[in-house]
């Protein structure tokens, strides 16, 4: 059976708040899947439901086709980092991993292996209370890797890491995915996932906004957009608009053009003897693509929740 995380029509309500609203997606193995949405979008709730910690009000969350609660040695099937701070301050790092290993009958030596993997060998006998946030994240990653599971879930793993830690984390996520594992990483900042995620699941207010590969998302966001830099801005705008392009001024000497390919723009400008210093197809950043996406998602959102515009306020 293929290793996947599968969420089907998942729903969860806390009091009057609908935290997760008919969410469905599948996370495939072999790539890093980012799970993105603003704070309060329902990412952590979804992850807790996948881990069987919170009971869904409807729908199902399956890991490798099974409900998490039915797994007998779950640490060997799914590794999760939910909250790096969830360690007892007076327990030594090694003991923290040791009790987890015991609970699933994982051999003791595996504890030292994962401590080495995250670079905490020297801190193994130190108590968790004295750990920096970065060290706690590493300990949490070690705990997730303890059972060498094919499915990994990390909730905001980059949070609080220094640049070196972020670099290490990206390399680790890549390596784990390249080994053929499911790597599911949440973040409320798209920029944190730049350079590591291959696929994105974007949610807002508990609903699915996009389930797309990063490449497709960027291509869509960059489509037909050309940046033109010219001192003869107004003449250029008039000329291009008369040929059916949508032109927008960015600043004194820059405009963006949509609706005409770059070579056609160049030909038109040359024909009118308008000088330009730069003409380039635009490559959107992931952040921009995300903004576009969430804005669209709000515009086209179903009208049954008139106040549902959390993304719009941010976009």
């Amino acid at each position: 059976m293929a290793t996947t995380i599968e969420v089907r029509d998942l729903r969860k309500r806390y009091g009057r708040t609908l935290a997760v609203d008919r969410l469905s997606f599948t996370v495939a193995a072999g790539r890093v899947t980012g799970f993105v949405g603003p704070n309060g979008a329902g990412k952590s709730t979804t992850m807790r439901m996948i881990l069987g910690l919170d009971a869904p009000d409807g729908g199902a969350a399956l890991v490798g086709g099974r409900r998490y609660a039915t797994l007998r040695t779950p640490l060997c099937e799914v590794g999760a980092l939910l909250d790096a701070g969830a360690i007892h301050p007076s327990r030594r790092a090694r003991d923290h991993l040791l009790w987890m290993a015991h609970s699933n009958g994982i051999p003791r030596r595996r504890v030292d292996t994962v401590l080495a993997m995250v670079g905490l060998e020297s801190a193994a006998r130190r108590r968790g209370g004295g750990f920096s946030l970065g060290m706690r994240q590493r300990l949490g990653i070690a705990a997730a890797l303890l059972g060498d599971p094919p499915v990994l879930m990390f909730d905001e793993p980059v949070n609080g890491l220094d640049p070196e830690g972020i670099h290490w984390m990206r390399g680790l996520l890549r390596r784990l995915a390249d080994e053929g594992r499911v790597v599911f990483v949440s973040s409320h900042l798209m920029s944190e996932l730049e350079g590591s995620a291959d696929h994105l699941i974007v949610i807002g207010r508990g609903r699915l906004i996009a389930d797309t590969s990063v490449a497709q998302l960027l291509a869509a966001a960059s489509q037909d957009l050309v940046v033109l830099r010219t001192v003869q801005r107004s003449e250029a705008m008039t000329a291009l608009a008369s040929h059916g392009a949508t032109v927008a001024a960015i600043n004194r000497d820059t405009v963006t053009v949509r609706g005409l390919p770059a070579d056609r723009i160049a030909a038109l400008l040359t024909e009118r003897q308008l000088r330009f210093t730069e003409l380039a197809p635009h490559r959107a950043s992931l952040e921009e693509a995300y903004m576009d996406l969430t804005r669209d998602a709000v515009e086209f959102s179903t009208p049954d929740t008139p106040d549902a515009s959390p993304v719009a306020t941010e976009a």
Partner: protein
Amino acid sequence: MSQPTGRTGVEQTDRTGADQTFRDGQPSYRTTVRNARDGFGHLLGAEWTKLRSVRSSVWCLLATVLLTVLITPLISASSSTNANEAPHFTDQFTFVHQPMAGDGTVVARVSSQLNSQEWARAGLMIKQNTTAGSPYAAIMVTPRHGVRLQANFNTDIPGPDLGAPRWLRLTRSGAVITGSESTDGTTWHPVGTVRVGALAPTAEIGMFVASPPVLRVTKTSGGSSTSLVLSLGAATFDRVTIQPNAPQQLPGWSELMLNGGAGTKGAPPANVPSDGDGPFTAGDGPFTVHGAGDVAGYGIPSFPLGDDDIVVNSLSGVQLGLLAVIALGVLFAAGEYKTGMIRTTFAATPRRRRVLGAKAIVVGVAVFVAGLVASLIAFYVAQPVLRRHGYQPPAYPHPTLADGTVLRAVIGTALFLAVLAVFSLSVGVILKRSARAIALVVGLVLVPQIVASLVPSLGVANWINRLTPTAGLAIQHTRPRFDYAIAPWGGFAVLCGYAGVALVVAIWLVRRRDA
């Protein structure tokens, strides 16, 4: 419109090659960890690792022992007794007697006996002389404890559990006295034989009636007092015959009220109605005899040992040690909720009932071991202190672990702490907050005790003491006492009830609520 700033998209696009690498149906990653198990033993190992790897848990276990042991000499030294200075016997009864020279037999039927006290006595006695404290042997019926053959304030041989009407027979053969009983005066069953070494050739022989005083407890606010209230026994004898082996002139009956021994300190039986002091009319009855007091000493069940339960005194340091146990039990559960580690726990073991079961067993066993160490040390530390304060035989025989009730008290103290730990753990799970849970359990343990000592009614106080978790401390009791509200195992069952209900509620909650 988007700002033309990003360049990282190029890297992103390059990464998409990974998308093609793994598809459904292709072999996916398999764990390299071999032989992973989810056995309950592994779960116990996990919970034990959690317990021992946190300093506060280890401190709580140590504190349980230290608090219990360190307070013990103070508690033991806080009470003293002069029970052994009081006379070691009481010899207070009404005796209808006449001298008999040499061997012989006396027979009588106790046709009725008033149930004035469970240990009231009516029967036949042979006694050295009419001086209080002189050697004797007697066969008697009692309202609640059947036929008994007793001698010399220290020997008690129980016979059949039957009362009046009953035929009794006492036979002297030198220093050997044999007592028998019969339903009809024809078929006799021996009850036993005793040796009364110092018996003179001519001894007093006859009928006797006694009825020990009744213990009355008065509960006042903040304490209770006890007093002994006179009870008056009465019995009717008929078919009385004396058959001396050697022919002799029998002088006839005379009645005497003896008043000696410990009973002299109590209410003197001045108001016992005399059935005509001096010589009785000759004949074989019926005689109605009234009497108060007791003929007993250490070794005879009706004679009270010292009031105090010195085993309880030795082990009451646990009342302080239990605070550490409550803290341990609560923190072992609520600590996980506080740090959020409960999610890691339930993610590692989704079968939450098993987690709670393992937690309860681990904390229970750890506390039992610590409690047993504390209880044994406290018991042995207390004994010399208690002896110095007057708790000596015969009023207070030395307690030993070979005695079943003492062993039950010592092991039971550890059991009490273990079950209290499980109760605290469950409350910790239910409330999730350590401060609230500790306050609740400590309150449940301490407040009823304080209230019970303040209410002026013994009945109410006893009910309060029966219904709190500390009723479990009744397992320390080694002797009956007027202020014991509940039987040893009964009290322990009350505590187990608390722990059981709390554990069931905790399991129910944990399974249905989000972690």
